[in-house]
């Protein structure tokens, strides 16, 4: 063992993906353990440099806004992949398919008959007071009854190594292009190690996405487009990559026109009908006639075209009601209610602050709690009980008092760590996992791998890219 491994200091009370409690390398990482024990720090740094340059040249960047100017940054990447064995992956895959199936049935239900409310499995107040619940979607027949075409379920591992679902991203989850680029780069970095591991490929994600989208309409060669907010959107790189790899047009709202409640795109040889829109803009901006009236990103009247069945919108508008943080706690019940099955993947215990007993419990145990807004995302607007001062907690609780149903609390879980090369050292950093699932008319397919997001700051639990998070490649090992 060289200094690199000997100096690796695990976080206390935390599961490490590569090392067990005694500091021994786990079997699945044995080749990497050997590699790292023989590696020189300098050469690891060179690999890191190489990958940074690779991303820069490829233009794999996201835009951050600073001084009113968009600056392109590369998404921080760590060179050591995260490895998942085939047995565990099978559980993840089944668990995600089960969850998405139930959530999709839930969406169909809440926008039509609302059996789950009538049977009092979920309180009606959760829907009524929720701005993610779109009245425009009520009684609207979506093609093939699919709402959640593309989802990215975030998973984390607690200190005992058990997996939990952190949230279900059913709106427009991003990050899949980084999953693809991370694989491109690890292929270059580990020409010897990769083949030994027999890693499941992720490169066919765009083809699978295209095939799955194609099943949504009964037409041999449907016109599929990807709708982007434009060049200055932070995820623009991802939009161009997916459009390029799927071989579809990347359109902006201004490229679309509506005629006789059908959607067309303006091309150099006239207007062309569009059948399926994979939109990467939020519900709010989709149609100024139905939602945010100020928006010019979408297309006025598109909702009516959708309602008439002339165009398919992916994901369906209104899926936000199913990945809302308050609804989240009911997903195990949904699985039971709609599928009569036991949930395969666990939920994190969630307390509703609108419930006075639960609120009192949260207050008494605030040191172990994180409080989140039900409609928050990106790691913003949270209160970490163990980090906040008493004043901050008081101010936050005053906010809660105004609208208690807008807040939930969860115990703080120590995210598992994975070794990373940071500032010329091998150090543990917290990670999560976002696999991507695609729902076509036949079945749900989960891409074997996903994006392992990394909290690049020491001891931080926040992996969001907007707050300095990075990522690493995820290797799912093939079954023997």
């Amino acid at each position, binding site marked *: 063992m060289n200094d690199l491994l000997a100096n690796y200091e695990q976080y206390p009370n935390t599961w490490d993906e590569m090392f067990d409690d005694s500091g021994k390398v786990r079997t699945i990482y044995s080749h990497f353990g050997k590699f790292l024990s023989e590696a020189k720090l300098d050469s690891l740094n060179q690999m890191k440099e190489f990958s940074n340059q690779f991303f820069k040249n490829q233009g794999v960047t996201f835009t951050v806004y600073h001084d009113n100017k968009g600056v392109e940054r590369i998404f921080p990447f760590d060179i050591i992949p995260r490895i998942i064995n085939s047995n565990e992956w099978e559980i993840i895959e089944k668990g995600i398919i089960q969850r998405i199936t139930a959530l999709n049935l839930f969406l169909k239900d809440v926008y039509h008959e609302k059996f789950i409310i009538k049977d009092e499995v979920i309180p009606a107040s959760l829907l009524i007071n929720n701005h993610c619940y779109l009245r425009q979607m009520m009684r609207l027949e979506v093609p093939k009854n699919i709402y959640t075409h593309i989802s990215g379920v975030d998973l984390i591992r607690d200190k005992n190594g058990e997996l939990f679902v952190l949230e279900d991203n059913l709106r427009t989850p991003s990050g899949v292009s980084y999953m693809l680029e991370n694989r491109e780069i690890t292929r270059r970095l580990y020409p010897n190690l990769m083949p030994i591991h027999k890693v499941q490929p992720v490169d066919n994600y765009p083809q699978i996405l295209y095939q799955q989208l194609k099943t949504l309409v009964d037409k041999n060669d449907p016109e599929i487009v990807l709708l982007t907010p434009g060049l200055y959107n932070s995820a*623009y790189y991802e939009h*161009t990559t997916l*459009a390029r790899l799927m*071989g*579809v047009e990347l359109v902006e709202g201004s490229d679309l026109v509506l005629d006789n409640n059908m959607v067309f795109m303006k091309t*150099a*040889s006239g207007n062309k009908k569009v059948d399926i829109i994979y939109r990467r803009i939020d519900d709010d901006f989709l149609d100024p006639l139905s939602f945010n009236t100020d928006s010019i990103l979408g297309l006025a009247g598109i909702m009516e075209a959708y309602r008439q069945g002339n165009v398919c919108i992916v994901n369906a508008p209104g899926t936000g009601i199913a990945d809302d943080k308050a609804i989240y706690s009911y997903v195990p019940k949904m699985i039971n209610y709609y599928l009569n099955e036991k949930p395969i993947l666990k939920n994190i215990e969630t307390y509703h602050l609108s419930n006075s007993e639960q609120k009192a419990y949260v207050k008494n145990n605030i040191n172990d709690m994180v409080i989140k807004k039900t409609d928050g995302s990106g790691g913003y607007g949270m209160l970490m009980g163990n980090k906040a001062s008493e004043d901050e907690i008081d101010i936050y609780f005053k906010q809660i008092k105004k609208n208690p149903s807008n807040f939930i609390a969860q115990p703080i879980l120590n995210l598992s760590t994975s070794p990373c090369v940071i500032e010329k050292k091998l150090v543990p950093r917290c990670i999560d996992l976002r696999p991507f699932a695609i729902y076509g008319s036949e079945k749900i397919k989960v891409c074997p791998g996903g994006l392992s997001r990394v909290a690049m700051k020491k001891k931080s639990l926040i992996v969001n890219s907007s707050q300095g998070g990075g990522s690493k490649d995820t290797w799912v090992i093939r079954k023997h």
Partner: protein
Amino acid sequence: MLSRVANNLFWMDRYMERSYGLLNLIKTNYNSTLDSGDYSSWNKIMFTYLAIRSENEYKNHQDSISTIFFILFDKKNPNTLINMVVKARENARSVQEHISRELWLSVNKFFLHLTEEDVILKYRKSDPITIVNELLQFSHIYYSVADITQERGTAYCFMNLGKYLERVVQSIDFLNLRIISLDDKKEDLYESYFFKNLLISIGGYQLYLKTYKSIYKIENVVKMIAINENFPRSIIYSVNKLNVHIGRLNEFNQIKAGELNFTVGKLKNHLKYSTIESIKQNGLEQFLDDIKFELNKISNSINKTYFNQIL
């Protein structure tokens, strides 16, 4: 193909062509100031290429080196090299699914090179010719990568429309600004460096020598730049290319572009049957004005036909 995408492809190549022209001009002008010691030649470039109307706007740049750095790196003037490459790259970025991966990489690398933090610092220490040669390499790579990797489809045609429209404008400007004011009696005409640099700046020095040996005559220069079909920077060469790519576009996309076909065909034939005698008869200025008028029509017609822009 989306009209917006077509338009972006068109402008991607226009900006690349324009930056290539600018780099060549810097190189030869710098060379000629070394021979002549006359820095006022930068004024014309500042005026035509950077739209700087008065000397006050760049009075801090009274020597070649600082003028060159201004033309290359000034961020405020929209026509500097850096800003043109930024725009070319922005256009490329938005059409990535229509251009080859390699082409995108070549534009992006050009952009990254120019926007590197210490590039100006690094360049301060080198000689201008070395700098410009290094930058010209990026243009050369761009053209060759486009040639060997880009499929000959609609996207390629739009890129070429941009490229040749820009090039023909440059050739006309060249004749307009650098030749028209000359008459054969002017003394320094007989200084060989003058003609040499003039021809080098438009990339025609070698061809001129081969065709006319070392006899410098304005008539010959005009002939070569206006109506020599084999000179890739001549007016007629670019117009022929425009004609080819418009024809292909209409064939690929089944467009009936009567007006556009007519205008470009007419200009093509006008040039085909022009001789140096006929040009002299009406005067070079009139000849160039007529072409400019037709080019404006073509440009408007391209906008209307393909880019959905009605002016």
